[in-house]
């Protein structure tokens, strides 16, 4: 055997354990979802049979699917810009020598390490009608009592607030690291030119933070499809599907209604959305940033 062949055998032997697991739990299930979406769900006396695009026709005619899609869109629009803007603000603040910097940074970061399922209990109590803290604060100012999680108008917003609170401090960390890596000579040069602090931020710091913003943006988009834990505690998708996100709907169809073929079809939609994100990231955005 020549050395090139030996290297190939060695290389693949080293990769084998990881690749086998990835194939079994990432690549195969993705392909299997696609295959299964063309079959019917197997029942006790009726095995799965090929149904072509029937599941997709069902999908297009399913009002709950469209509701979940629009909820997820609003959830994404609500969480992504706000959490990124807050993360940047937090990082700029914590990067300056403000009073109590260590404590402030810790306060911002703490939600990141707490289990979502646990803090959702606290937030549930926070939003509870009559007893809840929010009710008491609103009551103090003479506001009307609102059932935040029980009303179709406010439930999704409440879910969105919790998600922003959970992820903003996590994104702050990346901005903080990037800000600390900026050479101090940039600030000195800008000051000699007489730039205001706002100009320095807008024209120098912010553009230089662009790679970090892209990284955080991709993570925020993925999170918008992934964060569903708090829905289990706070609303279970209600009232009347007002807080059903795509992944939560997949869970309901697959594990409450046991309609696995339709759940696989929904999974394909989610995978297509994630593939689109990947395409935008690698195909368009990253072409312009340095990659080693």
């Amino acid at each position: 055997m020549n050395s090139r062949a030996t290297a190939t055998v060695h290389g693949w032997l080293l990769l084998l354990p990881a690749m086998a697991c990835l194939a079994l739990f990432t690549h195969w299930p993705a392909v299997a979802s696609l295959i299964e979406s063309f079959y019917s769900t197997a029942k006790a006396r009726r095995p799965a049979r090929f149904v072509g695009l029937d599941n997709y026709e069902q999908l297009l005619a399913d009002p709950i699917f469209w509701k979940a899609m629009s909820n997820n869109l609003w959830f994404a629009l609500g969480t992504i810009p706000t959490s990124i803007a807050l993360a940047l603000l937090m990082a700029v603040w914590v990067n300056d020598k403000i009073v109590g910097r260590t404590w402030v940074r810790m306060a911002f970061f703490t939600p990141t390490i707490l289990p979502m399922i646990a803090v959702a209990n606290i937030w549930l109590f926070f939003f509870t009608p009559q007893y809840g803290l929010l009710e008491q604060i609103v009551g103090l100012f003479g506001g009307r009592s609102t059932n935040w999680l029980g009303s179709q108008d406010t439930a999704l917003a409440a879910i969105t607030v919790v998600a922003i609170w959970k992820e903003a401090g996590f994104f702050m960390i990346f901005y903080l690291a990037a800000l600390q890596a900026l050479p101090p000579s940039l600030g000195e040069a800008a000051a000699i030119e007489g730039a205001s602090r706002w100009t320095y931020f807008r024209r120098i710091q912010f553009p230089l933070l662009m790679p970090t913003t892209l990284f955080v943006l991709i993570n925020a988009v993925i999170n918008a499809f992934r964060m569903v834990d708090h829905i289990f505690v706070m609303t279970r998708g209600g009232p009347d599907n007002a807080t059903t996100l795509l992944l939560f709907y997949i869970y309901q169809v697959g594990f409450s209604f046991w309609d696995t073929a339709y759940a696989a079809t929904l999974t394909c939609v989610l995978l297509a959305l994630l593939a689109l994100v990947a395409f935008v990231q690698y195909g368009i955005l990253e072409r312009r940033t340095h990659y080693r």
Partner: protein
Amino acid sequence: MSAAPQPVVTAARSDPYAPKGLALTLESTGAILLALLWVLPLAYAVWAAIHPAEYTTRFVLTAPLTLDNFTRAWAAAPFARYFLNTFILVTMILAFQLVLGTLAAYALARQDFWGRDIAFALILAQLMIMPDALIVENYRTLARLDLIDTIPAIALPYIASAFGIFLLRQTFKTVPKELDDAARVEGASPLQVLMKVYVPLAKPTYVAYGLVSVSYHWNNFLWPLLVTNSVESRPLTVGLQVFSSSDQGIDWAVICAATLMTSAPLLIGFLLFQRQFVQSFMRAGIK
């Protein structure tokens, strides 16, 4: 996966844009107000947990302190078993992730062989297609393997981590090639080179990845909820959900106590090793 370069050690130069005087006061006030808002839910949970139930929504400074809520929560559900399950789970996942990740990262970083780039692309696919999206098919796979309702069932989809492989590959690439060559000249086999040269040099990356992995899997909920249905396999997060959605539904003080209990190990670890935690998450993000 591009991001910022490594933080540099800044010399003691004065930053001309550092806020001073009134600007500093305003900025500090804003930051502290936002920080207070951010800890409010946690502070509220602590208040409810350490006071009798009648003070849950009455904020008087003279309210008596009690640990009763914690003892009641502990007695009401098998939390000791849930703690043990979670501990086994995160240890098992991390151990496999490190072994599999190290081997794969070494191949990707330092071996030149046929199909390497394709393999790397296939691995990176997992960064986008997270295991959470594949719950339906993964459940079928584990049912076929007859592993439903076991701790390995929770762990299996996560033990090969694209994120960990990527992070280690980047670290291994920074190891000087001369060290590798020198060890080979001494007669070390490839695996010996890996264990004696690469692994010790990548220690900070292992620590950083370990902290991120443990926090992630300690807190993970959806998948463990699906594949477990008994006390013997349930991790803390699922146990807490079963506990708080059942008969305890109304007693907020006890639920807050249970909530704090499940978060306590990570929270205490974070408070003690704040710097390491923050730097680990930073390091893990800067790829």
